[in-house]
């Protein structure tokens, strides 16, 4: 039984990784509070782009969210955490930046000068190049 669970987990991890890089599409955000609260300051990143432990770290540290206070009322934060972790993908759970995940770096291995282009601005701005990123479609690069 343990072996079976292990195998299923491994399969799920592989499927999650494939979702994020090979097919270049992830299920879109379907949770209204996540869309609203995360989407106020940046594109609401799809839950499949990070593993659950990364999302938990992010939700634990909203008062210092990449240097900014992005705190939320406790109930709102709880529903968002629940949505993100229930629909999480795979990757390194110690890293909270999507752009530090190995699959992301493999996909974006090009001249770093692109990030400082005025139309791009930051690595976090998926939509600068992936026009349909907000819908979870990243194949137009």
């Amino acid at each position, binding site marked *: 039984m343990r072996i079976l669970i292990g195998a299923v987990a491994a399969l799920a991890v592989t499927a999650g990784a494939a979702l994020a890089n090979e097919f270049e599409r992830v299920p879109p955000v379907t949770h209204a509070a996540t869309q609203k609260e995360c989407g*106020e*300051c*940046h*594109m609401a990143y799809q839950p499949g782009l990070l593993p659950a432990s990364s999302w938990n770290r992010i939700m634990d540290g909203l008062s210092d969210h*990449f*240097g*900014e*206070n*992005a*705190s*939320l*009322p406790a109930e709102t934060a709880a529903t968002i955490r629940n949505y993100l972790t229930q629909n999480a993908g795979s990757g390194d759970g110690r890293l909270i930046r999507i752009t530090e995940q190995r699959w992301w770096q493999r996909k974006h291995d090009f001249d770093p000068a692109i990030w400082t282009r005025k139309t791009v*601005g*930051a690595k*976090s*701005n998926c939509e600068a190049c992936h026009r349909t990123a907000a819908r979870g479609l990243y194949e137009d690069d």
Partner: protein
Amino acid sequence: MKKPTLLLAAALVALGAGVALAAAGDPERARILDGYAAQTKAQSPDFAGFSAASGRALYMGPHAGGKVAETPGCASCHTANPAGPGRHYKTGRDILPMAVSANPKRFTDPAEVEKRFERDCVNVLGRACTAREKGDFITFLANQ
């Protein structure tokens, strides 16, 4: 003689109400401002009303001690023209105008208003805002 005076008085009252309504506009916004006024009054009994000029100074900055060095004022993201769109200093995300004239929904959802003050006062000032500062800020932008 009595009637015209009464009429005039009634007209003045109506005008006064109109001016107050224009400042607060939406009844929800008026309620939010009333709440901050009551809190301010409790702390300083000589409180005589919010100041758009103080609200403007708070909005423009620059302030020292904020959590985010890149945003010494609200204007850092919302720009010096609150009737225009703003832009998040780091992500570049568009922000709807702060001025009520350009965005009539501003300051009409108490939970949203408190959420933003709680967050951005720390980011810009490095501390929570007082009720008076919140009232001044809304009064400034309700007249923009």
